[in-house]
């Protein structure tokens, strides 16, 4: 009888070994020359896991210089890619996602018990043995903040030209144009000439596209939420600032259209499960401005209603909107001076900010909550397209 002896494959312990002279090739193939599209269909954040497995082997062999060198060239490589692709949303998302994942790995496998609560026994075997990389975690966290800021800048740059047009000028409610104040030339601050008007659907399409890219690249859900909170703040600030400067949009009909547009945005957030992000709360001043345009503005009771409703608008902003308010037709009266004085008297106790306009460049501080992965290092497969054959599985 023939006896076949099967050689047992040596167990892969989730480490990757490479020769020091291949480090430049590794950072080139895995960082600077890598296209996110090459990794479609693979585990999200694959480069981060590969880098961690390389760091782990250098830690295993107690080679501190190799760890220093790899982390430094990786970080410099990521910065180089971001500089080259400083208007590429997908590339920036890809590296934000990977930098955060590498940061999470350095925590999850640090050996600090606080970061190991969700680890399996197998994952605990994959912790670093010799080195404490706390200081490198700080560098990766700082780098993540820089990448996040670049991502916001790109997204804002795409959305900004659409906002005023989509939020204040486009009329999607049928029959509303008949009740617009007359005598104003149609204008748009978002363009010099030509028909560059945008409807709200275009803004929503663009946000869908941002959302899909961020999800596909495996960006942490908490970061995606913060991106949309920031973008919604910007939509709020730009729209409100325009409203505060333009008489032609301070009307009942714009208030109506604006409230409808905001409700569409709220619905979009719910549909994408982003309603807990705090994005709607950033729109509160605009929601109140839309309501202010629609409320009656005549009696002392109306004044009281306005004061108790508009808590997110400053006195200066409320008064400005009332002054700019344009009646729809000859049957609607202008807001009287005495009505505005009543409002001012009621609000004099408020300690409001001095400036009329919102700071549309304001950035909320970003947080990167720890998000351990359930993936085990030894289950990760390196696709041939990455040209990393020189990495040895250990």
């Amino acid at each position, binding site marked *: 009888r023939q006896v076949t002896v099967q050689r047992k494959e040596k167990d892969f312990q989730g480490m990757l070994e490479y020769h020091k002279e291949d480090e430049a090739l590794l950072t080139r193939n895995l960082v600077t020359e890598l296209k996110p599209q090459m990794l479609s269909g693979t585990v999200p954040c694959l480069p981060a896991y590969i880098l961690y497995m390389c760091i782990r082997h250098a830690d295993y062999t107690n080679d*501190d210089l190799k*760890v*220093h060198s790899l*982390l*430094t060239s990786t*970080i*410099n490589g990521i*910065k180089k890619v971001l500089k080259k692709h400083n208007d590429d949303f997908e590339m920036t998302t890809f590296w934000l996602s990977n930098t955060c994942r590498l940061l999470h790995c350095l925590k999850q496998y640090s*050996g600090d018990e606080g970061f190991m609560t969700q680890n399996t026994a197998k994952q605990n075997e994959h912790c*670093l*043995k*010799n*080195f*404490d*990389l*706390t*200081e*490198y975690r*700080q*560098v990766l966290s*700082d*780098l993540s903040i*820089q990448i996040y800021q670049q991502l916001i800048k790109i997204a804002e740059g795409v959305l900004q030209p659409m906002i005023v047009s989509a939020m204040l000028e486009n009329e999607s409610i049928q029959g509303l144009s008949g009740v617009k104040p007359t005598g104003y030339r149609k204008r748009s601050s978002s363009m010099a000439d030509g028909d560059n008007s945008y409807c709200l659907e275009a803004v929503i399409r663009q946000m869908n596209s941002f959302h899909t890219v961020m999800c596909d690249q495996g960006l942490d859900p908490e970061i995606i939420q913060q991106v949309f909170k920031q973008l919604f703040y910007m939509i709020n600030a730009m729209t409100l600032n325009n409203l505060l400067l333009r008489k032609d949009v301070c009307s009942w009909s714009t208030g109506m259209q604006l409230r409808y547009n905001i409700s569409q945005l709220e619905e979009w957030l719910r549909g994408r499960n982003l309603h807990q992000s705090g994005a709607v709360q950033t729109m509160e001043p605009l929601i109140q401005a839309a309501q202010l345009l629609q409320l009656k503005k005549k009696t002392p009771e109306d004044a009281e209603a306005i004061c108790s409703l508009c808590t997110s608008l400053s006195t200066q902003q409320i008064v400005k909107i009332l002054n700019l308010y344009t009646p729809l037709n000859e049957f609607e009266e202008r807001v009287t001076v005495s009505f505005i004085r009543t409002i001012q008297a009621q609000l004099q106790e408020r300690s409001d900010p001095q400036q009329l306009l919102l700071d549309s460049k304001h950035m909320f501080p970003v947080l990167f909550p720890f998000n351990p992965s359930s993936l085990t290092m030894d289950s990760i497969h390196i696709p041939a397209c990455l040209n990393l054959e020189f990495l040895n599985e250990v």
Partner: protein
Amino acid sequence: STQRPRPRVLLKAPTLAEMEEMNTSEEEESP
């Protein structure tokens, strides 16, 4: 007997700005 794990050695890291400075000077040095 259970062996206590050895304490890990803290690897000092330059800040992000220092890293960039080093990288820039290296690039300037190389022809």
